[in-house]
């Protein structure tokens, strides 16, 4: 209960801060040198937050979609040949540092949101893929038996049995991806993506700790809220299939 209250308070604080950052100027006043602005005003914080969230949502949806399709394909008889390869690709995708991928994507895609999307997309493949694979393959043998006994076709089994049963672990994978992507997206602002990283970088360039802190704070609060939302969804999904 206290946890929920704290979360609600965090959400309210975040919304109030984004709606009217200047009312909170006093909070950041102790962190700045004389004559430095306490609140970032170059671009409205709410608009940076929106484009930051859009970028992360796009990347997470894309990597979830591709990882799910991959996981389903390599668990069908026709795609089994690709299983070792798919595992290698997703594992390497997560090993590559997002910053390096970001930098390498710049010559191909130019400055802007593109390189950030690619970096987040690659990094996000593994958690969803591995979890979906585990969810699709490590089901009790009785489940497959029962589905076959009921006369379900392979496609019906996938949609009505396998995927719903794998949903909680797939959501866990999405949660890991989303939280990491939120933080990593800030680096996108080094190559001109519009994210909250813009605020942090402006702070770094002008030695304004207030900027660094407010950028970091907004991202951090959103990350905690998203983390909790996914955990709630995971619990709901688990309850639906009779677990937890």
């Amino acid at each position: 209960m206290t946890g929920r209250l704290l979360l609600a308070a965090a959400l309210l604080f975040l919304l109030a801060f984004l709606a009217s950052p200047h009312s909170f100027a006093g909070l950041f006043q102790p962190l700045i040198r004389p004559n430095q602005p306490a609140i970032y005003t170059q671009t409205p914080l709410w608009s940076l937050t929106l484009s930051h969230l859009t970028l992360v949502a796009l990347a997470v949806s894309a990597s979830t979609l591709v990882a799910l399709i991959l996981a389903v394909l390599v668990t069908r008889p026709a795609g089994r040949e690709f299983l070792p390869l798919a595992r290698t690709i997703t594992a390497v995708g997560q090993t590559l540092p997002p910053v390096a991928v970001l930098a390498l994507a710049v010559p191909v895609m130019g400055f802007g949101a593109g390189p950030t999307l690619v970096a987040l997309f690659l990094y996000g493949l593994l958690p969803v893929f591995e979890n979906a694979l585990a969810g699709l393959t490590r089901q009790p043998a009785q489940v497959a038996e029962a589905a076959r006994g009921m006369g379900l076709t392979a496609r019906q089994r996938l949609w009505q049995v396998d995927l719903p049963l794998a949903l909680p672990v797939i959501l866990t994978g999405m949660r890991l991806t989303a939280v990491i992507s939120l933080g990593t997206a800030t680096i996108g602002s080094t190559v001109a993506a519009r994210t909250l990283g813009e605020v942090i970088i402006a702070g770094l360039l002008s030695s304004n700790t207030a900027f660094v802190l407010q950028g970091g704070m907004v991202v951090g609060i959103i990350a905690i809220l998203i983390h909790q939302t996914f955990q709630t969804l995971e619990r709901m999904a688990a309850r639906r299939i009779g677990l937890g």
Partner: protein
Amino acid sequence: MRLDRPGLLFALIGLAGLILPFAEFKPNRILAGEGATLAAALPLGVALLFALAAMFAMGVFRLPAILRLTAALAALLAVLLAIGAAARHLTPEGDTLARVSPASGFWLLLLALVLMLADAVARLRPGLMLRGLLLAGAVAAAWFLLASGALDQVSTLREYSVRREVFLREARAHLLLAFGSLGLALLVGLPIGMLLYGARRLRGPVLSVLNILQTIPSLALFGIMIPIFSWIAATVPGAAQAGVSGIGVFPALVALFLYSLLPVVSNTLTGLDGVSPSTRDAAMGLGLTRPQLLGWVLIPLALPVLLAAVRIVLVQNIGLAVIAGLIGGGGFGTFVFQGLNQTAMDLVLLGALPTIALTLVAGIAMDLVVEGTARRRQEA
């Protein structure tokens, strides 16, 4: 003969690589360049083109994995040597400004061959020993290729040759950041994990704090460390003399250390919790003291999970250390961000490629170590 579907995929990528420009000639390091196909980029280009095409075509059929492995290795070496030769061939005699860099065709060929290689290795299901040898062989071969001078005319290595000293310094800084923060995290995180193992009530709060630390974006955490360390240097007597300062390696090192704490602490807990109660009771029944129980029984049994944390932290920190380049903390990130500022992509590659190579080698090597200890534990 039966078709091999992954082989078909590699052939398609490879074909695109053969058609697209192989190398790019630029009058100087900033200007845009023009592409040259494999056939035009080097004297025996046409022959190489046909050889590679034949190799990819062969890969479409189901052949023994060892044969595919050898073919992919040979082709990879040929492509790497070809880019070095193309750079020598395309650079006019005595022109020190002109740059030849790898173009899209080269990168696609590299991708196709590396995928083919990875697929062949995965199908061979090599033992730990063989995988270790393969990794060592790959590192040695890369070293030899770079040291041989065959690639010296390629643009990224030209960037290297004019800043050899700086490169070595930043490489040391990068390794110090990645391994130093790992060492600190183990030094602090292991005791915290063991403490929490005994004190269940503290687990929730401590893990929550570490979790929240993890949600702060790396860029902000690095940034917040700067004023904190400037303040420490200015107020704590002797700190400035000891080298503590708001700029330089300290803020980055501590930021990386803070990020590493959660994986170390939580894996220590998971590892210790994973030891079965009956094993623990048996050890206690033998009259082991608490430290003996921890050192002789619990830690050896938890070792695979602890090493898994080391893998996570190492790979994560080698990557995150790039960001230190943005706040003057050194490391390969210095080249990445300098290059992005000057839109000099060769310089970006000089920072990004070693970082990627380091993470891959560290990741694969740690996987081998984790698997090795897990297997030993099962046998014991």
